[in-house]
């Protein structure tokens, strides 16, 4: 594979390389269907991991000069026609797939393709590159795709518990040896051994670290990732696992309402502080209720808490650096 136009991200500055939308996923309901259009540019480049190691990635990006990991979330309404244009700027073949919804087929290197489809079922989906599976997906060619019920701004599906704001978290497990092999056009032969664990393409930084608080790098401050709310700001989180590992998702300060797993609504809504996240495009949909932390005494309404994975290997980077892994902050404002 030809290596070209590598973008150095991370500590060297990531300006222009991040998603263009600010904050959480925004949505206004409609009584009618419409056509939603979006163009993704398949690009590649290197991103610095917390231990300073540069790792090769590919992404569904917003322009030829960007590398967006994950691709910018797409949100549509049931019945909408979605037109996605994929511009493959690389020399390798790629595809755009949403399981059960659309498969672009092969988009050859240097080619573009328009895929048009209609989505009928509300819920959370992942778009990804299904070619060279699972490598292209693991390398970063993935993103969140949300389908809202017709005319609704506050439900996951018709009749679901309601929310006032929503986020998409796409998680991934990164084996730098695999990424390097794919960058050289080879198929990895080693057993998958993840060294980095990301949420929306980023990992945590902690107080005292020079990148702490940088929203482009620190998953605890990234606006698409960090939950921000006040008491009553019920928040839907669509958790999509692009990675190879099963994980355990742990929320501090509130139990979540568990609405769906792998896109299927659950028969009963359980309140959980910890949930099993299935691997390989597994998903969970939960509502973080932003209630007064029930065991606080005296009661508090403000504070900062983590959401982190509890299979604690994920809380490390490069085999160490605890706290530089897959986590974000839940802020009670």
């Amino acid at each position: 594979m030809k290596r070209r136009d590598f973008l150095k991200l991370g500590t060297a500055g990531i300006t222009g390389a991040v998603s263009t939308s600010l904050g959480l996923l925004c949505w206004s309901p409609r009584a009618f269907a419409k056509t939603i259009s979006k163009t993704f540019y398949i690009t590649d480049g290197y991103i610095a991991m917390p231990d300073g190691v540069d790792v090769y990635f590919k992404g569904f990006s917003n322009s030829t000069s960007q590398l967006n990991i994950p691709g910018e979330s797409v949100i549509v309404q049931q019945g909408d026609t979605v037109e996605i244009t994929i511009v493959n700027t690389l020399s390798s073949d790629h595809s755009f797939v949403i399981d059960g919804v659309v498969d672009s087929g092969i988009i050859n290197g240097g080619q573009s393709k328009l895929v048009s489809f209609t989505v009928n079922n509300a819920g959370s989906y992942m778009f990804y590159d299904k070619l060279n599976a699972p490598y292209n997906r693991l390398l970063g060619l993935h993103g969140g795709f949300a389908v809202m019920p017709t005319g609704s701004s506050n439900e996951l599906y018709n009749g679901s518990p309601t929310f006032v704001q929503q986020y998409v978290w796409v998680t991934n497990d990164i084996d730098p040896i695999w990424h390097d092999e794919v960058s050289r056009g080879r198929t990895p032969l080693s057993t998958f051994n993840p060294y980095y664990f990301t949420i929306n393409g980023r990992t945590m930084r902690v107080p005292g670290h020079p990148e702490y608080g940088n929203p482009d790098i620190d998953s605890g401050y990234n606006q698409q990732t960090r939950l921000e709310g006040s008491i009553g700001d019920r928040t839907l989180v669509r958790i999509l696992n692009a990675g190879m590992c099963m994980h355990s998702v742990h929320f501090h300060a509130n139990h979540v309402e568990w609405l769906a797993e792998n896109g299927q609504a659950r028969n009963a809504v359980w309140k959980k502080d910890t949930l099993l996240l299935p691997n390989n495009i597994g998903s969970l949909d939960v509502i973080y209720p932003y209630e007064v932390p029930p065991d606080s005494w005296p009661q508090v309404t403000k504070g900062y808490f983590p959401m982190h994975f509890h299979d604690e290997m994920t809380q490390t980077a490069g085999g160490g650096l605890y706290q530089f892994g897959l986590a974000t902050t839940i802020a009670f404002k």
Partner: protein
Amino acid sequence: MSKILRPVNMMHAGGGGGGSCYIYPDSPSTPGLVTADVTFNRTAHMNGSMTMDDGNTITMWGFNEGGGMGMGGGAFPSPAMRMTQGQVVHTVLTAGSMMQGTHTIHHHGIEPSTENDGVGHYSFDVNGTYTYQWKASHAGTYFYHCHTNTVLHAEMGMYGALIIDPPEGPGTLFSGGPTYDKEVIWACDEIDSSWHNKNWRAGTCGGDEGFNSLNPDYFIITGVDGAQSALTDASIAPTVNVGDSLLIRYICAGYLPQRITFGGLNATIHMSDGRALPQTVQAATIKASSAERYDLIIVPDQSGVYEVTVEFLHWVTGAVVGTARTRITVV
């Protein structure tokens, strides 16, 4: 947070070599301290051990009951905390210095204020004595564990069960919920013995400690080896009468996913993570992930010996990497 935290510099910590260790030592006073209804004193220790069925002895860390500087004891798992719903609780943690090891207590599933949540990098790593103050608002099964360099400290065994009884007291799972005649606590965990010879802050100053990859060689139930001992250990393997209600408080205390099967007995799941389910669920097997809890009741209708298996699953392949076993004897 009201203050800006700074990590401890290795030079100041006596470590040498420069660079920062991301540890936040402090022992402040507790905001809004009131008189507690119940107090648990816990002292961190790093001198415990567990002898396995194959004769090997593994170093374990944990929390001893009582104050002082943690000499002696070496409890694993750490002594359970048990209180009644509605009580204001103090957990008084005494931990060491930067040389001896700072620690915290996070009461997993308990949801207090930031200062009392026990997450080092959101508040502080205790280097003296701190009183965690919180109120036990929901009956159920929880556990507590150290949240300093958690990947290592929880693996080293720094955890214990935490049970909140409803006002009715032990024998009732939650107000309006089922009663039980006998209970067991199964905290199922896997041990990678290659992690058990490290410094308490390993990895927090950088460096590859292999913490991305857990390759367990022992599989245990509440501190008892699940290879053989847990089959007969009286604290793990219950004997109940036909028709009795056996409550199993199942805590997935390891890092890998688990699948627990009850030897052909049918269980009724009443709660998970300290919350009653909207409707109970019948289950012959449960798949759980790290730190989930399930409260289930078995009412056996036939005498016999039922072998319970806890399978530990590879996080990528789902393959069984090890099994712990115990037994329910029905007479």
